[in-house]
């Protein structure tokens, strides 16, 4: 065996000692890896994200949003807001009502006719009568074209003979056909003989002017033929004819429809355009209010506004006045224009009315109460109505966007909950970056409130302008956009204030260029580039 030298032994000992030292070091490894000892801590990544980027061209937005056509764009892209609302409709059902007509006639033979029946074995008797055509009012109806209705005729004969009777209405015609009905009277040994029948009056025309009055009378002709049955013949026997015209509806009705009062209940028209405005000055150079009346009643009507006023959100009201508005003479179609409408247009502008003052008061509703009267200048025999006759009154507010505003305040309140657990946000910075191509500058504020609208905190420093007007030329047109970058810092304590937020109140204070000192115009080619970004430090538990 080879003996190891002392030096070799020392070296081996040294190696062994080093190895033992290394193993001893490993005893502290376990503690370093025991994750049960890991204290919870926070990870605070800082994220910067663009939230919103929209380039809002007014023309594009009009195309996208204005399905009602409320915003009109002229050839030069000038914007006019046309706010049209239907004010009221008055229909013919409320004007004339045709009641059912009931009339009974008893017919007897004359003495000569009785002799003729007894001696000749038969007789024919013709009787002409005028029966009144009743109406519910004082209308004097000359003629009427029936849309629907029936006539029922019942005959009761006491004669002890058979025969027939024809009931004719010579002025009730359907083209060349005259309304006529014949009934057979078959006496079989007992009486009276009773027969009845009906006819559809649809499309018949009733001429009611052939009587002595010239209106409201209906001629009728009864032709009775009897054949002697061998029974005694006396003058005491008679025949009773009953006429019933029921459920009469007309297509058209002519005559003198008289002076009638038309009462329209007072009503309110809401104007959404100013529904959120709560203050400030607003002025348009050339606002217009158009009242359009469409009348298919064949008679003149005059309307009188008992109330016609505009009221804003603050409760103050202003009466609307102007030329030709009160009284309002409503045109009507002539008798040659049956079925057509006559139009009456009243335009109120800043030269013939106080409409500028009305619009500048930022009305949120119009209150109206109108009363009408027909044939206001006296009766006329040339009136007519159809079953489609009606009066429509429409209101149209034309607001050419040429004007100025100063501290025009709009405000809205809405429910709100944060879409993210804000307690996980340590701090946040919102950056609003707006390049404004409109001649409008704005201060915006958002108030965070609890359920009872108690303000918890606000978004922006009070009075801070977040939108600055672009530069305008002498014509009030934008020449260059303007950019404003607004940083809204939410430190931790401010975020803590927002935990109970249930609603937000958004307030915008708008002024046109140069703090509303000069009129500006709004064109469809204006645009606004809005960017909203957020930089937030999160709190993520580890």
């Amino acid at each position: 065996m080879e003996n190891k030298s002392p030096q070799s032994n020392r070296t081996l000992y040294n190696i062994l000692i080093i190895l033992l030292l290394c193993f001893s070091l490993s005893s502290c490894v376990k503690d370093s890896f025991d994750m049960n000892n890991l204290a919870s801590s926070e990870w605070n990544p800082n994220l910067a994200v663009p939230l919103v980027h929209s380039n809002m061209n007014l023309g594009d937005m009009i195309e996208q949003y204005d399905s009602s056509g409320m915003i009109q764009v002229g050839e030069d892209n000038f914007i006019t807001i046309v706010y049209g609302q239907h004010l009221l409709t008055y229909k013919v059902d409320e004007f004339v009502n045709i009641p059912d007509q009931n009339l009974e006639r008893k017919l007897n033979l004359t003495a000569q006719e009785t002799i003729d029946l007894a001696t000749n074995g038969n007789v024919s008797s013709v009787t002409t009568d005028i029966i009144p055509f009743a109406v519910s009012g004082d209308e004097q109806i000359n003629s009427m074209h029936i849309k629907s209705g029936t006539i029922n005729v019942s005959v009761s004969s006491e004669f002890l003979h058979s025969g027939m009777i024809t009931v004719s209405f010579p002025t009730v015609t359907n083209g060349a056909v005259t309304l006529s009905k014949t009934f057979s009277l078959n006496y079989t040994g007992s009486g009276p003989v009773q027969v009845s029948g009906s006819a559809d009056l649809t499309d018949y025309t009733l001429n009611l002017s052939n009587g002595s009055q010239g209106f409201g009378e209906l001629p009728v002709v009864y032709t009775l033929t009897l054949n002697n049955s061998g029974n005694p013949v006396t003058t005491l026997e008679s025949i009773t004819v009953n006429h019933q015209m029921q459920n009469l509806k007309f297509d058209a009705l002519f005559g003198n429809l008289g002076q009638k009062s038309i009462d329209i209940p007072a009503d309110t028209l809401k104007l959404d355009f100013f529904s959120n405005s709560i203050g400030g000055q607003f002025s348009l150079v050339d606002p217009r209010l158009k009242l359009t009346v469409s009348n298919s009643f064949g008679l003149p009507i005059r309307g009188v506004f008992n109330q016609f006023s505009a009221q804003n959100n603050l409760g103050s009201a202003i009466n609307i006045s102007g030329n030709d508005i009160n009284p309002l003479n409503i045109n009507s179609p002539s008798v040659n224009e049956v079925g057509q409408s006559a139009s009456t247009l009243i335009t109120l502008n800043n030269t013939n009315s106080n409409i500028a003052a009305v619009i500048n008061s930022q009305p949120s509703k119009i209150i109206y109460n109108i009363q009408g009267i027909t044939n206001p200048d006296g009766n006329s025999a040339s009136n007519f109505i159809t079953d489609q006759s009606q009066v429509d009154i429409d209101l149209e507010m034309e607001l050419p966007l040429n004007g100025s505003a100063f501290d025009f305040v709009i405000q809205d309140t809405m429910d709100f909950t944060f879409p993210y657990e804000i307690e996980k946000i340590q701090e946040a910075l919102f950056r609003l970056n707006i390049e404004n191509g409109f001649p409008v500058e704005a201060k915006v504020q958002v108030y965070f409130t609890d359920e009872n609208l108690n303000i918890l905190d606000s978004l922006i420093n009070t009075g801070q302008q977040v939108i600055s007007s672009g530069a305008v030329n002498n014509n009030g047109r934008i020449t260059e956009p303007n950019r404003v970058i607004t940083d809204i810092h939410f430190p931790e304590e401010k975020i803590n204030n927002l935990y109970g937020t249930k609603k937000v109140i958004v307030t915008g204070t708008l002024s046109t260029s140069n703090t509303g000192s000069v009129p500006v115009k709004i064109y469809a080619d204006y645009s606004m580039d809005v960017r909203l970004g957020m930089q937030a430090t999160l709190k993520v538990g580890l």
Partner: protein
Amino acid sequence: MKNIKQSVIPPQAGSVVEVLKRHLAFGILLFLSSSVIAQNDFTVYNLRNTPQSSYLNPAFIPQYNFFIGLPAISSMSFSFGHSGFAYTDLIHKRSDDSLFIDMDNMIAKLGKKNFLSVNASADLLSFGFKVKKNWITFNATEKVSARFSYPKDLIRFAVKGNGAFLGETADFSGISINAVHYREYAIGYARTIGNKITFGLKAKYLYGMENVYTEKSNLGIYTDESTFDITANSDFRISTSGLQTFGKTGITDYAFKRNNHGFAADIGLDVKLNKHFSVAASALNLGFINWKSDVKNYSGNNQSFTFSGIDVTKLTAENGSTDFTQELLDSLTNTFKIEETSEAYTSKLSPSYYLSASCSINPNNIFTVTGYMETSGKNINPAFTVAFAKRVANKLSFNISYSMENRSYNNAGFGFSVDMGPLQWYLACDNVLGVFLPQNTRTLQYHGGINLVFAKNVKKVKPEKKQPEKVERKGGPKF
């Protein structure tokens, strides 16, 4: 704005966070060890009596006339390295023994570019023999390596968020994964010219089995400081081979019939300057593999997408889209469309270079300083070591070293070889501390095996004779 703030929050038992915490250590270690590079092998480099030292410089001729590497056990090496951070750079222990996560420190430890790498290799067969002054070797070696490269910005972006990159680009360029499994058949030749110069050359045929190769990756995210708009750019190409059919082919087809062939060469030089000093240099893995079997290429060329925020006009328009998320996903999908092809490609090996200088106090005590450099694409990974090798007896050599590598400076290496008859057992580790203190290490490397060695040709170590102590006799009897 503050980005990172540490505070203590009582842990919530049973929460997801708790579960994650329990697995955090394992996850971090897995992360640190799951990726790889062609790791250096300093300790074996300086164990020159092992035939495997010639793997690192083909000019190194061992002291035996003949050796056989036993199949599968003669050379087994495994290494992982992480140039980014160690476990303790992320998880600190407080004075009360509690642990806390220190992301700021972890980020501070990162380099601009970082990598995680894992290498493993095993000899299937090796042998070598001397013919006069010629040294001829053969080895068949199975090699696996993987490397995940990532830039500091990637981690900083994930931890700090893009808010830390306002007005600048978070540059993820260079993020890549490269992994390869191949077999090397190598024939080596070395010859000593005169008594001072030895040169070596090794020619290798490479048989590729699997590969993931990132040919290019230029990625970045820019956040505009004014609008916070986020712009993502990408330009990448990743090729793979052998993944689609992995495990689906017969063993013969898998092991021998793939059409993935490559070639490589190692060259080396060892110069003895005088009795005490020598220098050596080597260049390894100068080669490539051409991949043709089961190839898939994934690429996206010069893609760019900017997110500027939600266009509320689209969301609120009467006929507008309200499914913004889907719209955004569609846009992203269309922009960052990944094109798939099946084109053959060539992947380069990662060449590495050693340069060393040795000083022999005597044949049994040698100091060596070694510089190392590995290149992977445009990335360079340097290392440096100082080693002391000692031959204790004729049958035992050991080596201790100190290395600076992967931007870590706590690497103490140790290795030994011992001859037991014809058996030579050797074991080397470049960072022994990493075995015992893994939480502090960025590098762990091991190389060992058993060889059959014959006809050792070395001068026997002579025990250092001690001078007999002179005994001064004072006042004693005189002879």
